[in-house]
């Protein structure tokens, strides 16, 4: 693929709006994530960054604007100038191609680590058990937990749980990974291991959208940095430059608090 050829953006948002009742959480968010790009989104709590992330895999329905993943609208199908809401089956099929990692890990506590990872490949992609298990073992190796396959989530630390959650998402071979504050619920000493796994993924060329407070990660692993506040994108730029020299007053104020 040459540089001049137009690339379909992995995520494209155009004036995305989202309301919860009378509270408008997203007030027109427009951005673009290219394949292989690692975008970090920062911002104070309540700025809408998590909501935006959840819109990308249709865990939240957007109220206005356009949002597409890999060239296809999220949650709708366009036919001529009419929009048709997708059926549950179609929404699920699209979600299967997008990995998501949550702040609270959300591992399935009644399943072992290995079962957590193979569940969706078996039941959604209908892979054979042996294939799924082989892949799961590889992924556990990748996240440094090769010996934890038979543990239950409550028997391992938070950092380990989050790495399992990443492996579980990767088991579906997603084309896009969404991280919703993946290290915010972790003890400081456990954050590093999770970020290491994420760096590894970034190096391997995974397209990632990461909502985070880890400025170090954003600076080193991020290709772009977005600062959101009050439901809009305040500033967007190259992470190093933006962290060193923020242009906007609100960005300056925020960065001075988190750095």
């Amino acid at each position: 693929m040459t540089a001049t050829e137009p690339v379909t953006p992995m995520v494209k948002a155009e004036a995305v709006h989202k309301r919860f009742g009378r509270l408008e959480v997203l007030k027109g968010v427009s951005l673009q994530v290219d394949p292989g790009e690692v975008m970090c989104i920062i911002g104070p709590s309540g700025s809408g960054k998590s909501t935006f992330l959840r819109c990308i895999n249709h865990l939240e329905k957007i109220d206005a604007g356009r949002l597409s993943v890999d060239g296809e609208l999220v949650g709708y199908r366009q036919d001529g100038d009419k929009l048709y809401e997708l059926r549950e089956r179609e929404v699920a099929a699209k979600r299967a191609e997008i990995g998501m990692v949550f702040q609270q890990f959300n591992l399935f506590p009644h399943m072992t680590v290995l079962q957590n990872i193979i569940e969706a490949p078996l039941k959604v992609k209908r892979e054979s058990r042996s294939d799924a298990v082989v892949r799961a073992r590889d992924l556990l190796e990748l996240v440094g937990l090769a010996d934890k396959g038979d543990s239950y989530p409550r028997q391992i630390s938070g950092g380990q749980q989050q790495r399992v959650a990443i492996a579980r998402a990767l088991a579906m071979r997603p084309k896009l990974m969404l991280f919703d504050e993946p290290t915010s619920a972790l003890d400081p000493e456990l954050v590093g291991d999770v970020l290491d796994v994420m760096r590894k993924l970034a190096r391997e060329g995974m397209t990632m959208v990461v909502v985070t407070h880890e400025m170090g990660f954003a600076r080193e692993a991020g290709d772009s940095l977005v600062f959101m506040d009050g439901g809009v994108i305040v500033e967007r730029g190259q992470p190093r430059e933006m962290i060193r020299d923020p242009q906007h007053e609100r960005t300056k104020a925020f960065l001075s608090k988190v750095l």
Partner: protein
Amino acid sequence: MTAKSSRGTGDLADQGTTGTGATETVSDSTGNGAPEEIRAIPVRHPGRWIAAVIIGLLLAMLVHSLFTNPNWQWGIVKQNLTTSTVIHGIWVTLELTALSMLIGVALGAILAIMRLSPNPVVSGAAWTYVWFFRGTPVLVQIIFWSFLAALYPFPSLGIPFGPEWVTFDANKLIPLFVGALLGLGLNEAAYMSEIVRAGILSVDQGQSEAAQALGMRRLLVLRRIVLPQAMRVIVPPTGNETISMLKTTSLVSIIAVVDLLKAVQNIYGSNYKYIPLLLVASIWYLIMTSVLSVAQYYIERHYARGSARALPPTPFQRLRAVWSRRRRSTGAAL
């Protein structure tokens, strides 16, 4: 982790305020091996002794009267405990309990899932069902269904367990048994649906979100992720319902289905030995509920998988552990 760190800061604070005192304790616990064991006179609990004496006395009086008062007529109890009429009645009671709980749990689960459906017609129907069946007495429902069974010949309904009954007893009892079953089962479904719904609601929202994010569909999420976790909340009250059902089945004696209670009623109807025969029924009900309680314990353990770092041992395992420890110690002594 948090306990450790909070203790750490506590030590710091101690050192700040008391100075040498804190360092002494530290050297005590680390330096000269184990610190001296505490030998203090324990708090006396005279209340416990008084209570034990009073309760022991009452218990002794009860047992004494049970054995010496001839009106209990233990001989007749013993005679009737295992007569064929009673045993047959027990089977009917167990059958009614098992089948009506089966209906109750299956239909209840369906109703709960319907109630949580985004489809308003479906959830409204489930709500109405619960409203109706919870709002009328189960006895009325049993009688109603037994009359309905008399009004309509039932073969078209296709209850799979009907034919087995024929081998047991007279043909004409089928509608009554089915009527009793419907009365108990449909009523139970209303209660079970609320239990199942409570269980489903108790599972963290993040679980179904994570499952959905993996591309799983609603019913798959429910079956594989939510319900197995909900079981921990569903099982205890369901055990409760089963035990309650075992006794509620005695209501069917009113429509002449010969369950355990009706069986003993039939016997004392002819020999007028009311008390000993009611004792026979009570003894059997107690035995059956005890067995169910034990079963419930093990089912609960099964669904506690992954909820605790390690499950506590069962009473049985504890007993075995004590036993093997004792054998080992006596073996060593020998």
